[in-house]
């Protein structure tokens, strides 16, 4: 009898604990999107590993993004610029999704221009979109954004005298907003990419 009583009490305690855990998980799941939106954090979903992104780490690919990628990049990265771009003629590079990176811009090459968007410029007026993960990750995110844009996935598009401007919602953090304005707002996260293209040539790309 005594043993049965102890078992009943133990079962009751376990049920109560499970209920409390379920309520906590439910509450967390409910408020997580709002907290992410308000703070720019990237709290993990329940059952999901932490997705903290170190923007200074140039080799790391955001886990949440890399899970969705369909780009068939050469995994060894041999002979590829930044492990993803193939040099098709001197100083001209083609990405797996078909974007062309060529000489141009005041920096001399589109890749050098893009590099500006892999680090914050806290003194720059207005906003300055910064990709997480340095050049290799930025190039992969841009390629995925281009694929999504072409497929019309969560994309808005406008054209202007031969330039195409896509805004692609990547659905997860891909960088942050820096510059003077971004720093004033404590570097809010960015999950959209703006692409400016001339045909398949990339003119510029930056997180928004």
């Amino acid at each position, binding site marked *: 009898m005594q043993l049965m009583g102890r078992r009943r009490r133990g079962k009751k305690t376990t049920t109560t604990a499970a209920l409390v855990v379920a309520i906590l998980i439910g509450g967390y799941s409910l408020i997580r999107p709002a907290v992410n939106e308000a703070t720019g954090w990237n709290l993990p979903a329940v059952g999901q590993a932490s997705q903290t992104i170190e923007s200074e780490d140039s080799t790391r690919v955001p886990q949440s993004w890399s899970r969705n990628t369909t780009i068939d990049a050469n995994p060894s990265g041999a002979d590829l610029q930044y492990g993803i771009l193939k040099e098709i003629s001197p100083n001209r590079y083609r990405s797996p999704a078909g974007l062309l990176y*060529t*000489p*141009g*811009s*005041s*920096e001399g090459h589109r890749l050098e221009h893009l590099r*500006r968007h892999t680090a914050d*410029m806290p*003194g*720059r*007026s*207005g*906003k*300055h*979109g910064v990709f997480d993960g340095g050049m290799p990750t930025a190039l992969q995110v841009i390629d995925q954004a281009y694929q999504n844009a072409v497929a019309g996935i969560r994309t808005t598009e406008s054209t*202007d*005298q*031969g*330039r195409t*401007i896509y805004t692609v919602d990547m659905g997860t953090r891909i960088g942050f907003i820096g510059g*003077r304005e971004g720093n004033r707002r404590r570097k809010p996260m960015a999950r959209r990419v*703006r692409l*400016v293209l*001339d*045909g398949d*040539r990339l*003119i*510029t790309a*930056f997180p*928004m």
Partner: protein
Amino acid sequence: MSIRGRMRYSIDTCPICGGGLCTIYFCEGTDSVPPHGLIVCDECEAIWLQPDVSSPHCFPDAESADCPVCRQPLYEHAHPANQNDVDDLGWTNAINTELTMESEI
């Protein structure tokens, strides 16, 4: 050529790409074309011939940008305007002081 530390005078954010600064450039011109000013977006390279981003704009060639006025290579013949250039152009009133900063490149 690095212009780090020099002031860049901008008039607006770019209405085309939404991320660029529309910066005043001073182009040296040629023997037959006098020096002139341009407004160039530092992201999408949209160019205006007047210090007014609601006026017509154009884009240079993606790989070899030329000045739309004198047809010389844009980034060789033109540079972000300094205070004297802006004064010479008579565009001082167009400067947006909140968007003016020291160059970081």
